[in-house]
């Protein structure tokens, strides 16, 4: 008889270390607010009660990079802002993830000119792109849940 079938009696759950760690990481992910433009409004309303991001363990946005592990780049990044973005990313402790929210952060959007970085992936490595101009809160939520799926698939080999 396997151990699993006795769970009810024993009060013990067996799992792998990776699953336990990833479970913890996905359910206590602390996003850093990086609102740069109109997408920030949608990001704010994602946290508000109607969509309620805290259902997924993201109680509040941190304004400090040292306390956060998820950077949501919401809005267009100008060339002057790009070094700041990279610096804040470098200040975040590992493990860290980036969501490019909206068309401007993903690929430059409608701003195809000298002043705007054509996609934030030129500055920081991006995990999930959320399309939309701006994306609705549901789209951002879906992007975050997609990131959760990605985090859950991480193995010890990736961390090394």
């Amino acid at each position, binding site marked *: 008889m396997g151990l699993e079938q006795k769970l009810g009696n024993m009060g013990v759950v067996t799992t792998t270390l990776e699953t336990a760690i990833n479970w913890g990481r996905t359910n206590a992910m602390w996003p850093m607010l990086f609102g740069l433009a109109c997408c920030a409004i949608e990001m704010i309303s994602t946290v508000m009660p109607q969509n309620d991001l805290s259902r997924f363990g993201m109680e509040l946005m941190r304004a400090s990079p040292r306390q956060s592990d998820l950077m949501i780049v919401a809005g267009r990044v100008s*060339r*002057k802002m790009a070094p700041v973005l*990279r610096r804040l990313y470098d200040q975040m402790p590992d493990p860290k993830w980036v969501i490019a929210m909206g068309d401007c952060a993903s*690929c*430059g959007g409608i701003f*195809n*000119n*000298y*002043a705007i970085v*054509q*996609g934030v*992936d*030129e*500055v*920081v*490595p991006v995990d999930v792109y959320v399309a939309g101009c701006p994306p609705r809160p549901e789209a951002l939520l879906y992007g975050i849940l997609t990131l959760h799926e990605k985090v859950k698939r991480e193995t010890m080999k990736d961390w090394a």
Partner: protein
Amino acid sequence: MTHAEKTVAALKEKFGDVIEQVIHFRGETSVGVRPEGVIEVLRFLKESPDLRYTFLANLTAFDDWPEEPRFNVIYQLREMSLPADFRVQVRVHGDAPELPTATGVYLNANWHEREVYDMFGLTFTGHPDLRRILMPSDWQGHPLRKDYPLGYEEVEFTFNFKEIEKKKPYAKE
């Protein structure tokens, strides 16, 4: 006689040779002034007890390239008690884009002139702190000039996806 008409009459009487033209458009009055006389005109408009244009509402410019003189610097003045608006316009040649600074007359011209310098490359002689204000300090060129390249990046479609993807500067970890 409106306040603007009074202003134009006073300017013509005092600075007849410096005034290039008077433009009336949709109830607004502008006066074109030669570059060498602009500071005296502004000082007169501000300090004359009859005119009292004590507030520099805006200082900006536009580019008429390829026509010469290509730069037009615009001083938007306001008389606060009536209130009344008045515009002083200066055309600057592209060979030597230089103007005397207006910071001695209006203190708030400081940042406005820095913006015009940043965007158009006009040098304001005598300015206390002429640095870039909007663009990064190591930026090359002046973006609002009409002959400045737009910095356009080619848009990715299915047919050219691979060749653009090769050139795209992705960030490393």
